């Protein structure tokens, strides 16, 4: 029987495959910087959604896409691998046994990666469907899982790609091309595979729509009303706090320092960074009570959780910018950036953090402004009365 061109991978399988590759690459490239958490989360949800589709397609899909079609036992994998070394090279129209195992492992690790990502998002960021369900501490543990599984998955991808190339050479069959065109050269018997154009296009359309939902806000954002991809919890505000603290500097929300720091701050109000605040006793009482009730120990935000666990119990720092956590988070920012006249001071949080006034400091809610050409421009929004 002469070899003929046969449709093996339907369009949904091919689109799933390449979109999965793209979302994995996108997630990998955006994982380093908190600034791009929105991109990372978009890629993660896409990745997860694609895998869930593949699970369904593995049951209800076309012949070679079904899990049952390539559910080979360990013995068959061993026999197949041995055949690669010897002469009796076995040929499969769909996945060969070794490739099949790689697919199952890739899907399995991909699902663990997705779920652990949701755990991290719910724990560390208190965002996504698991916000409030997973604690900050648990989120930190899931982060370890998420990172390890990501590395394992990358290693598996390498094995998969090596396998594809060696198979392509040994069987004289361009498998990468087959994953684009869907067709293979088959000499023996093969099943008939419909292309399923509509479903393939639907997957692409769904993903584009999901992208529009995720990033559309950036298109309508203005300088005064920036788009915040993640909204933090609504933190308690206090008018006196805003007025008294906000007169000279950003009214840093009390969740950024532990209660003992605020107690010291107001006990030493006559030497507040070399200035005598001269606040009335009743004002001090009100401000101290508000600060203590909303201090870092309440763990309402990621920053609060980090501050309360990283500041040693015998320390009560007054400057947020001198804490280890703050420094660690800002160590990559160069002096030239701090010196920009639209930033100028390290206390000027809202020059970059778009939700600084709210005290939430969400990961993706930040943007370093371009150096302004107008020397009098200042990005401080609140003003003294």
């Amino acid at each position, binding site marked *: 029987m002469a070899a003929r061109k046969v449709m093996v991978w339907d369009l949904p399988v091919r689109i799933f495959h390449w979109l999965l590759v793209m979302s994995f690459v996108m997630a990998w490239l955006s994982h380093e910087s908190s600034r791009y958490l929105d991109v990372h989360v978009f890629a993660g949800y896409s990745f997860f959604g694609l895998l869930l589709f593949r699970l369904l397609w593995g049951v209800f899909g076309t012949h070679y896409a079904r899990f049952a079609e390539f559910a080979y036992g360990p013995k068959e994998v061993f026999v197949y691998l041995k055949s690669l070394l010897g002469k009796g090279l076995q040929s499969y129209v769909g996945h060969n046994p070794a490739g099949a195992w790689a697919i199952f492992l890739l899907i399995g690790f991909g699902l663990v990666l997705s779920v652990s990502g949701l755990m991290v998002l719910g724990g560390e960021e208190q965002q996504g469907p698991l916000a409030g369900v997973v604690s900050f501490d648990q989120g930190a543990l899931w982060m370890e899982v998420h990172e390890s599984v990501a590395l394992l998955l990358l290693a598996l991808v390498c094995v998969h790609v090596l396998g594809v190339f060696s198979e392509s050479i040994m069987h004289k069959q361009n498998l990468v091309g087959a994953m684009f065109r869907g067709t293979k050269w088959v000499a023996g018997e093969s099943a008939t595979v419909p292309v399923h154009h509509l479903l393939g296009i639907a997957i692409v359309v769904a993903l584009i729509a999901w992208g529009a939902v995720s990033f559309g806000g950036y298109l309508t954002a203005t300088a005064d009303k920036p788009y915040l991809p993640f909204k933090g919890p609504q933190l308690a505000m206090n008018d006196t706090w805003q007025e008294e603290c906000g007169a*000279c*500097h*950003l009214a840093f929300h009390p969740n950024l320092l532990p209660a003992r720091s605020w107690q010291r701050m107001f006990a030493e109000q006559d030497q507040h*960074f070399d*200035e*005598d*605040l*001269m606040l009335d006793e009743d004002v001090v009482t009100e401000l101290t009570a508000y600060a203590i009730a909303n201090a870092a120990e309440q763990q309402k935000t990621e920053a609060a959780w980090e501050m309360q666990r990283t500041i040693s119990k015998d320390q009560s720092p007054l400057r947020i910018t001198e804490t280890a956590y703050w420094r660690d988070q800002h160590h990559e920012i160069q002096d030239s950036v701090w010196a920009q006249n639209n930033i*100028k*001071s390290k*206390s*000027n949080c809202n020059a970059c953090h778009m939700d600084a006034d709210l005290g939430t400091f969400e990961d993706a809610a930040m943007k370093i402004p371009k150096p302004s050409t107008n020397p*009098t421009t*200042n990005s*401080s929004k*609140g*003003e*003294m*009365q």
Partner: protein
Amino acid sequence: MKQSHRFNAVMLCALLAMGMTSVVYADAVTTLQDEYRAAGAGPFSASAGEKAWTTAHKDAEGGPDRNCQTCHGTDLTKAGKHQRTGKAIDPLAPSANKERLTDVKFIEKWFTRNCKWTVGRECTAQEKGDFLEYLKGL
């Protein structure tokens, strides 16, 4: 007719109340200057206030000299800028900012804070009275 008389009376009372309120606010400067006079200061001069406003004072720690313009800027109808934090300070001239010079407590608080930072001591009643005389005309 009776009804409209009553209405007029109510309106008159409302107008009087509004007028009195505005008098009370506008009088924060008078109230303070009266206090300063009671403490032995006066008469107050806008030109003395203006001169003191721009007089430079040495920084005890050797930084650049300071005067009121360091933070409030040279044009008081425009926003100033906090020297250390860079935060914007609303215009000080009442013509540009109606809320200025209307709150006795607020004025005193900032006199004390800012005199200490700029001059290195609290200002005297005479100096404060002169400042107010100068600022209220802007």
